[in-house]
């Protein structure tokens, strides 16, 4: 079908389909950690502790303690992201007073998390 063959109905739907096909942002760290935490829980549920797998203890993953640590890390990361977006006034006052107004701490970048560095 060429563009000139399209009916008014086709053109109407094309507009909706095009809107829905807008680029979707990549998964953020919080979602990625939720998914990895699920994977870890599933291994544990099946009696396959990932700690037994040598590969699981390499790099950043082993450094943070393997799968058991992921649930807590996911929650902590989500909380950290939220605090970063909306710091309570009291927290903001304290950090500003002690550390100054500009403070940014990054423990894990997405590159580290996804192992895409280097």
């Amino acid at each position, binding site marked *: 079908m060429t563009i000139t063959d399209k009916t008014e109905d086709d053109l109407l739907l094309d507009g909706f389909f095009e809107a829905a096909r807008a680029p979707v942002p990549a998964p953020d760290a919080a979602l990625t950690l939720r998914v990895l935490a699920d994977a*870890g829980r599933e291994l544990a549920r099946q009696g396959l502790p990932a700690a037994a797998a040598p590969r699981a203890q390499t790099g950043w993953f082993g450094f943070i303690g393997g799968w058991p640590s992921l649930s807590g890390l996911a929650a902590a990361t989500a909380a950290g992201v939220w605090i970063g977006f909306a710091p309570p006034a009291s927290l903001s006052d304290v950090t500003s007073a002690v550390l100054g107004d500009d403070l940014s701490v990054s423990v894990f970048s997405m590159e580290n998390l996804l192992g895409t560095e280097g």
Partner: protein
Amino acid sequence: MNASADQWSEAPDEALLVAFGNGDAEAARILTSRLLPRVLAQAQRMLGNRAEAEDAAQEAMLRLWRNAGNWRQGEARISTWLYRVVANLCTDRLRSRRSVGLDSIAEPADPAPSAAESMVDQQRHRALSDALAQLPERQAQAVALRHLEGLANPEIAEIMDITVEAVESLTARGKRSLVALLAGRKAELGYDDH
């Protein structure tokens, strides 16, 4: 990147899933980086809502992890299987919108919309998603796979486990229903010029 990651980087998804089923956690990390973006995008396009899409994507990946122990290489492609799972999860979620009705269409529904979407596009996306919710589930899935994912009819037939002719029929009926559902809202969704 460490040696084991290099070892797995070229492996097919199916081999990685079998490795995960045998307890290899590195395989899960690589599969997540490969598959989650596409899974999330499919859910977002169908649902028009980021939070719902993230929940559906997480659930789809969880089902993948749970199926790892039973996965046999050569039996199915993970990409095909995931398209089916995500489509099913999304139509389940869309079904819950039916009681809301079409009156809510075109309201800004996503508290965290994609920066790439204009306000009009957000409204049209949400309107389309709500209209898909009114369709029979198989019609909604066929339309979404064809026109939102851009898949060819034979691939959709494989995903939905039906014939190509059935895909064509579902898609045609689904589009007719969508036109009927959306035509009355052209003006409020920026179609004055048509």
